């Protein structure tokens, strides 16, 4: 028998009460929010519970929401997969302007580099991570490039200035 959304929701709400919320099915995946302070406990429960058995952390990534409320400017999104019942879930943790969240590396080794990548691009601090340093960008970099305010290209570049292509304010 397949693992139903209602079973997951009931078990989580019974155990964690208001720390889990906003359960909704989006396309084929059950999505819900978890209080950022409780992520480690919730994920451990999801992994170790005899019914839930979410034994695989598929994906972990960050998100920047500059237009959201102050306490929801950043999010960490986790995708977990129960291979036995073949069920996927998506967990979202929202964070404020100084984003900090517990590392889930004690539960899943795969989180190590994925959290480093998220830190590298969004500046989200993963507390308890053994080696939280940049991974894809160079160590000397000071900004976090996937944040929305980070420009794609240096606005001061002159080699792509319209004037060099014969276009001026008057003729374009």
């Amino acid at each position, binding site marked *: 028998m397949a693992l139903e959304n209602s079973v997951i929701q009931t078990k989580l709400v019974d155990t964690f009460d208001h720390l889990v919320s906003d359960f909704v099915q*989006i*396309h084929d*995946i059950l*999505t819900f929010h978890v209080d950022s302070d409780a992520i480690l406990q919730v994920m451990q429960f999801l992994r170790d519970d005899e019914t839930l058995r979410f*034994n*695989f*952390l*598929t*994906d972990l*990534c960050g*998100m920047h929401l500059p237009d959201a409320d102050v306490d929801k400017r950043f999010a960490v*999104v986790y*995708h977990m997969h129960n*291979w036995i019942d*073949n069920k*996927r879930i*998506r967990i979202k943790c929202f964070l404020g302007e100084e984003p900090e969240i517990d590392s889930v590396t004690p539960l*899943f*080794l*795969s989180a*190590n*580099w*994925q959290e480093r*990548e998220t830190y590298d*691009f969004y500046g989200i601090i993963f507390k308890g991570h*053994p*080696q*939280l*340093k*940049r*991974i*894809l*960008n*160079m*160590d000397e970099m000071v900004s976090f*490039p*996937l944040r929305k305010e*980070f420009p*794609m290209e240096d606005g001061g570049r002159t080699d792509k200035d319209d004037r060099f292509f014969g276009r001026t304010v008057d003729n374009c």
Partner: protein
Amino acid sequence: MASDLLLPPEIRFQGIIDKHKNDDGSELAILNLGPTHPATHGIFQNILLMDGERIIEGEGTVGYIHRAFEKIAENRPFYQINTLTDRMNYCSSPINNMGWWMTVEKALNIEVPKRVQYLRVIVMELARIADHIICNSVLGVDTGALTGFLYVFQYREKIYEIYEEICGARLTTNMGRIGGFERDWSPEAFRKLNVFLEEFPKIWGEFESLLVRNRIFMDRTINAGSITAEKAMSYGFTGPNLRAAGIDYDIRVAQPYSSYEDFDFEIPVGKSGDTYDRFCVRNAEVWESLKIIRQALDKMPEGPFHADVPDYYLPPKEDVYNTMEGLIYHFKIVMGEIPVPVTEVYHAVEGGNGELGFYLVTDGSRTPFRLHFRRPCFIYYQAFNEMVKGEMLSDAIATLSSLNVIAGELDA
């Protein structure tokens, strides 16, 4: 200890070297394997701490060809993102290509015709064969056997010729569209596919017999770079590397997409998760892929080669040049002016290397709000140092080769 780990490996390892001076004056050495070394199969560096030829400790440094695909994707409409996905695992780019379009179709709630699904299955399986040809034959080269590589590599070219017939391109194929293919497959493409199916099995059989029971190859690969099933799962392994450790998880079976449920095929699994098992699993997978392609060709339904979604499917070029509607639609689609529903989807396909996932969040604007690629190579590579710890340097070369880490996908 955590603060130590934040130091660059050269400095951190120097501390360990200073502590471990032998009485005879010999000491541990730091070896830089890569970033540009033929055996690393791409631009990434392994800084290894060596005791003679034995690896004591290691750290992987990546990011040398990081191209900020996720950032670029946030500034491009869907059709322009396609070219980014093709450049991740370029050894099997049609899988990335099809995976991306399936993700978009899921977000837009588009149902594609059965013929499209079967054609996609064929092209994805061809890509998987091409990927495994490279991985396994180069594993032979890395262990000193060039012959197998020369035998089979020409068949990757034959696969590329089939791609060329389908879309005109060979490496970064860009053959998909939202809802189907850019054009229907020509009779020549099917002819080339049939020739491939006739000729390739014999060559692959020869390649297999060259290495599978080869004493030297077995000595070099058995028990090299082993990983247990539990560790592999915790490290996020999927695809052939996981199956070699004994877990029969395959997305084509677990969560079928593109009509994979219509085909009958096995999931090869290994036992010990070592380099030899990874080689054997990939070898067996090629046979299964051939089986799937034959079934798809036999059962190929007639019908259109794309879904009827004029809002998203690019109009034919003659319409763009000759009709005003065609021109307008083309322009609107390419510039991303067609509204996209506000949604989020995660879609995964069984890539040549494992679970290739696309997490797409849209906010109704012309570009994705967030696009994250779950890249299997990025996930595997963090396990590499643990897999080779305590082994010989030559084992590390074979292990790295058998993991099939592609730098383009690792860095993205």
